[in-house]
């Protein structure tokens, strides 16, 4: 017994490489411990701590980025985590979402008169889960990250104790999320059964090693399919999207912003990494599945968005169709053999980063507008007349919505151009055309919101006040949208050697 224990050698851990995670963990514990032991802090301080933590994690991630640039990608903690540009970029997007959402939440909770540290601590734990997910090189580790993220999100969705909708959203999300996790875990188990490992890189090696033997892939394919279902729930792909509009609508708006940005980025990046790293040899099998899911998600997301009357529901469906767009990039990379997955991966990375900024900015404006209306409503009517009462805010939302629609000179166009280019360059014309048509349908949704703001007169005009922190968050989101829209080279330069994923 003793002998066996002494033989066990823990993996060597490169502490600096996981420092963003440690910083986030420290911030979360600080908020929870100190926050619960001390009397109520002054207004805005909880949010600031969270924002500073996220900023520190971003700074450390930038250092990691430079490390990777000089010494190449590598695996950490005995192959459990991957350290490559793809993961670091996604981590930065997640931390940036935490930063912006914390600022907005700070104003939101001040407005609700219930500033408390738990929300921010949950943002940070969710971010830990997200950062683990985007870097996970092991299905079990990925599952841990997924659960950390999801559990935090369930609580966040239900965090407004005054509103029944928030409770309902939390419960609904929890039950369906539980199902999704079970699907995912079962998929992991079957995949392990088929390949004998849960390490993504090793799965690929195992699958390649018996390529010549007449292969019986049933176990593997069922496993992959179940994992896809689990991911489908998490990123709300059609037909697994049913929870999304209800949960997005019922959750407090800053939380919705967080779910739609950080939550979605983490799950999408993890999905992409699993398929591209572990199963490139079976791309012929999962490629068509992704094609169908992508087309369905795009079509349903954009068409159903059109008939909504609540802005949060509209944006929920639009976020569904954005996920469809990102899958267009994944479908494109299924046409190329690993490790050269080419444009698809780069396009996805660019898309998720820009999408995160975009969606946080949009929901921030919605938060501000909803708080100014009498009953916190987010119907289209609540947006009427903002163009007259607060033209600057209306202009900011217009820029963000035009970007979501993919109008040129905004970041949204750069993102869409990237994935469509990836699809077209591998000859996937059908999906490219479907995606662009759906972008047009979705544009109608954004136009409706713009019409409300600019071209309709308010029935009972209220002046929208934008608090300081929210102003900063919205300004950052709009600047990213416009600067990257006009000068995409700034971001494309960074992502030029992104396709090298960590493999050893």
């Amino acid at each position, binding site marked *: 017994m003793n002998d066996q224990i002494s033989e066990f050698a823990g993996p060597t851990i490169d502490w600096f490489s996981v420092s963003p995670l440690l910083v986030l963990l420290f911030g979360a514990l600080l908020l929870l411990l100190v926050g619960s032991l001390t009397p109520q802090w002054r207004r805005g301080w909880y949010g600031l701590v969270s924002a500073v933590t996220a900023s520190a994690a971003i700074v450390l991630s930038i250092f990691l980025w430079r490390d990777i640039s000089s010494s190449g990608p590598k695996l950490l903690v005995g192959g459990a985590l991957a350290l490559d540009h793809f993961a670091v970029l996604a981590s930065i997007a997640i931390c940036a979402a935490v930063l912006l959402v914390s600022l907005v939440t700070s104003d939101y909770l001040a407005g609700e008169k219930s500033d408390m540290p738990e929300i921010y601590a949950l943002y940070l734990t969710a971010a830990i889960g997200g950062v683990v997910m985007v870097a996970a090189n092991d299905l079990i580790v990925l599952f841990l990250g997924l659960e950390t993220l999801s559990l935090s999100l369930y609580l966040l969705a239900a965090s407004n104790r005054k509103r029944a909708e928030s409770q309902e959203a939390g419960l609904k999300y929890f039950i369906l999320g539980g199902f999704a996790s079970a699907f995912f875990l079962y998929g992991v188990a079957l995949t392990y059964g088929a390949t004998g490992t849960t390490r993504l890189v090793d799965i690929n090696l195992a699958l390649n090693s018996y390529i010549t033997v007449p292969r019986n892939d049933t176990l593997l394919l069922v496993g992959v399919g179940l994992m896809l279902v689990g991911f489908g729930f998490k990123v709300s792909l059609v037909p697994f999207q049913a929870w999304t509009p209800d949960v997005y609508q019922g959750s407090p708006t800053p939380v919705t912003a967080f779910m739609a940005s950080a939550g979605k980025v983490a799950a999408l990046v993890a999905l992409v990494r699993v398929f591209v790293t572990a199963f490139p040899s079976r791309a012929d099998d999962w490629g068509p599945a992704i094609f169908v899911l992508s087309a369905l998600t795009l079509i349903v997301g954009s068409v159903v968005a059109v008939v909504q009357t609540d802005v949060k529901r509209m944006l929920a469906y639009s976020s569904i169709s954005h996920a469809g767009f990102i899958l267009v990039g994944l479908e494109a990379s299924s046409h190329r053999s690993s490790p050269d997955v080419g444009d698809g991966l780069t396009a996805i990375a660019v898309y998720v980063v820009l999408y995160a900024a975009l969606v946080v900015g949009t929901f921030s404006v919605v938060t501000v507008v909803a708080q100014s209306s009498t009953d916190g409503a987010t119907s289209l009517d609540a947006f009427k007349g903002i163009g007259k009462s607060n033209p600057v805010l209306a202009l900011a939302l217009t820029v963000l919505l035009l970007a979501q629609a993919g*109008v*040129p000179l905004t970041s949204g166009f750069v993102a869409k151009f990237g994935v*469509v280019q990836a699809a077209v360059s591998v000859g996937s014309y059908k999906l490219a*055309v479907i995606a662009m048509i759906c972008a047009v349908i979705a544009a109608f949704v954004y*136009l409706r919101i713009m019409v409300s703001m600019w*071209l309709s007169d308010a029935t009972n005009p209220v002046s929208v006040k934008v608090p300081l922190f929210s102003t900063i968050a919205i300004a950052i989101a709009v600047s990213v949208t416009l600067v990257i829209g006009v000068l995409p080279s700034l971001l494309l330069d960074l992502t030029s050697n992104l396709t090298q994923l960590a493999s050893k």
Partner: protein
Amino acid sequence: MIAANLEVLSFPILTLLVVMPVIGSVVVALLGSSRPEWIKLAALISSVSTAALSLWLLAAFKSGEAGFQFVSQHLWISQWGISWHLGVDGISLFLIVLTGILFPLVIVGIDPHHNETSYFAWMLLLQAGVMGSFLSLDLFLFFVMFEIVLVPMYFLIGGWGYDQRVYAATKFFLYTMAGSAFMLVGIIATVALAQRDLGVVTFDLVKIAEGAKFSTNAARWLFLSFAIAFAVKVPLFPFHTWLPDAHTQAPTGGSVILAGVLLKMGTYGFLRFGVYLFPQAAMWARPAIFTLAVIGIIYGAIAATMQHDLKRLVAYSSVAHLGFIVLGTFALSSQAVTGAVMQMVNHGVSTGALFLLVGMIYERRHTREISELRGIQHVAPIFAGVFTVVMLSSVGLPGLNGFVGEFLILIGSFGPARWWTVVATVGVILAALYLLWAYQRVFHGEPDEANSTFKEITVREGLLMSVFVAIIVVSGIYPKPILDRIEPSVAALIEHVEGQTK
């Protein structure tokens, strides 16, 4: 090319043509709340300097040269091989001048009645987008400009239009965007396929058109993807249904710009991108496009005849006129294409002027119903006279500008598209019918009570219209300087097409 580049280094006139309105727009938006009285002045200074630049360009343009002049090329998105690549040749020259002149006229001549700041800001942004579309020699840049135009136009129609404005604006936006969706996929596919021949990823129009060899099948698909976008923009039957709504609901200024230059982005696109990039596919698609163009001519004319609303009548007349332009464009003979380019400008001038006049009628009578108007000739003879000249230009009366273009188109199309041209000629007669009939109902007869107080044309309106009338008459009587500048570029294009299709 190199010489042109050096010249540009000293004075980037084409870039200025695009940037000047943007600066104006930003200044107007910033002045907005603090100095409302300066807004119009700022908008005017910006647009007049753009006009001056475009006239200077016209003067400095070397006639008799076929290639692109004043070329300006700077790397924009190096990873995707995209550059800020502008140039002007005989085909785009007059469209640029038209864009330069039309905007200050609209800005000085028509008051928006409310929200001046945003109106002028959008107007100037629109000008930048249109200028950029006509000047771009880079597929990506062209697409950006082509799309960005939608946003200001959407807000102009939606914000300052008539009763159904939101519906019309949304329809306009979605129709055009749906067309461009195909074009974007087409552009990317063009670049991806051209990469195999060129060895580099580039969106450079000239490089792709001269260097890439697309397979017959691929070229056809690519051409179609471009053609849909342009067919919606022109608009070609059956993609035209957004146009009557947009025109009728748009404020007068918006209609003038829409008819004057925006629609030309479609016909220009056909010529510059469709035909230039995929000559073989364009030849292949000709019969279908001829047919649609001729249907547009006849259908537009009949629909125009039936309209009760004067503005809608002019809108449908645009469908007919643009059918002629498309017919000429795809006839691909030197005369027909020259005529088509000339007619793009003519239509911009005469239909723009018609919309201005209809706008003036609406200002006075608050109706555009033809049945409500009567005998205006008696109370406002000068107004009626101006209307006559403009209308006759639109009909294509010899001696006025409309005749030159239409005549060249018909002569040049007769060879390559004989029977289509025969049918199209009927459209010329129909044009005379619906316009003269409308004129008769509105201006002749005894004015009733409401019309007897119809105000004569004011000095400001008169000065505004005199610019249009001068262009109509001068270019009708002496079109040679214009044709001299258009023809070499057209000849080069035809040569390119013939070289590729042999």
